[in-house]
């Protein structure tokens, strides 16, 4: 991960670290903090703890988002401190609704100048988010006017999946969020997975391969790389950590203490995992529940 981040990321870039509560690339985010990147535009529908940590560490100068909160818990305190009080630095925001943001990534994934959506009419978004435009409908049917959003192409997307082969053809399941759209929209893709598997595993079920290896630039095997978020079938969300963050991030000082201990204080993910008590991981392990397999047929 250290090498992949160092090769893929530069100061001033637009970054997407993916997922909707699920499969959040915490390990990659911590590595970015350790490598002290600055002036990043952090893109995601749902910035959560990892973006809060990156903001507190001074990595971000902008956040492009649609819902910024600690999911199921409350607000993102470091994000708010930056927006409300400029601590540790001022950050700009560019704000959409979920569908607006994922439509921007989908337009980016398809090299389209815009995608239309039936959102924003009657709201105050178009007054504050310049990229939202309203087009006249050239057809007789449907609304007279339709909002559109332009493409969003991250410089780097860092996404996680449960499994991939060495080429990076990735299979992910459970909640997908906007991971696939972001991966196809990005110039460079860093894929981090719970396990690298033989390519025959991937090719036994091609319909499940949502990201093709040709779209992926770096593949990193990093078990538990999404902790304290979760990986469907592998481990559950560590809810204690989400509640703890709400307390720990109350002041910039206490936030920094946490970063010192859990990010700067460890060399890599392996050391982080050692610091987390083993019984915690055992508690997070679900019972297996296998999907009924399908027959592709040997043609």
């Amino acid at each position, binding site marked *: 991960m250290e090498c992949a981040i160092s090769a893929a990321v530069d100061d001033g870039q637009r970054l997407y670290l993916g997922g909707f*509560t699920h499969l959040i690339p915490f390990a990659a985010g911590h590595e970015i903090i350790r490598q002290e990147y600055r002036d990043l535009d952090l893109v995601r529908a*749902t910035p959560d703890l990892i973006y809060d940590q990156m903001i507190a560490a001074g990595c971000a100068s902008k956040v492009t988002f649609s819902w910024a909160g600690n999911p*199921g*818990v409350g607000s993102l305190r470091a994000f708010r401190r930056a927006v409300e009080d400029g601590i540790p630095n001022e950050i700009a925001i560019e704000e959409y609704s979920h569908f607006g943001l994922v439509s921007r990534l989908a337009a980016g994934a398809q090299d389209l100048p815009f995608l239309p959506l039936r959102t924003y009419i*009657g709201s105050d978004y178009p007054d504050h988010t310049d990229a939202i435009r309203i087009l006249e409908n050239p057809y007789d049917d449907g609304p007279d006017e339709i909002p559109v959003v332009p493409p969003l192409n991250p410089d780097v997307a860092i996404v996680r999946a449960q499994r991939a082969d060495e080429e990076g053809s990735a299979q992910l399941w459970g909640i997908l969020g906007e991971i696939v759209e972001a991966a196809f929209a990005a110039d460079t893709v860093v894929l981090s997975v719970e396990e690298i598997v033989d390519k025959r595993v991937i090719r036994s079920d091609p319909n499940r391969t949502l990201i093709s290896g040709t779209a992926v630039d770096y593949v990193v095997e990093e078990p538990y790389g999404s902790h304290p978020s979760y990986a469907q079938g592998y481990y559950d969300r560590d809810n204690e950590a989400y509640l703890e963050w709400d307390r720990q991030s109350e002041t910039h000082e206490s936030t920094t203490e946490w970063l010192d201990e859990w990010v700067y204080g460890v060399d890599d993910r392996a050391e982080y995992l050692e610091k987390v008590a083993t019984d915690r991981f055992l508690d997070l392990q679900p019972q297996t529940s296998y999907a009924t397999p399908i027959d592709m047929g040997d043609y």
Partner: protein
Amino acid sequence: MTEYTDTELMISRAAQELQDGDTTLVGVGIPNLACNLAKRTHAPDLELIYESGTIDSNPSKLPLSIGDPVLATGARSIVPMIQGFGYYLQSGRIDVGFLGGAQIDRHGNINSTVIGDYDDPNVRLPGSGGACEIASNTDRTIIITPHSSRRFPDEVDFVTSPGYVGGRDNREQLGLRGGPEAVITDKAVMRFDDGGELYVESLHPGVTRDVVQNATGWELQFGSDLVETVPPTEQELDLIRNELDPDGVYTE
């Protein structure tokens, strides 16, 4: 009569807004409890969809967020967000959406973005998430919120989710589907009149007109047949306390 909390009353009233067979876009917390309560009482065929893309979730326990794995395991389908919002919500397949917000005006327009000036905020809130599209594309939305004059100002600081905008006609002219159906607070149940303005339909037991008016930032209308809100039944309370939220995460 059994005691109950404001939250339990709100869950019970929200559940009553759901019809069997409805497809509903659920949030965590009170909406989730209300939907699961309805599913276990009068609406067994209620379909729960979450903005994370899980279709017909059957959570085995209380989800801690709308991205919780209990919403994925055992669901009928899971789709990427781009499809959940496009093929399910925008296409008009969702009957009911639940919304909350920091500010709500007389036409049901909701602010969940910012308190104060957008560019120099007093309080920066999480933002829309899917709320703006839920408000724009479901047949009916149900708004759940505590009742205070801070929450019900004359004008919201930012319209995150359009209600009737300037009134029912205005919403229709703008081409928005459906509209807000009810606002359920800890003091009253309110609905929208023919012009799209809020009026009080029922006051919760023990709550007076004055209390509600004082907690509202404009001269509030009261229905001509104003009644008392029906409290939750024993069965409902039993389900909420012993099955849906046994640890009291949202109800204590």
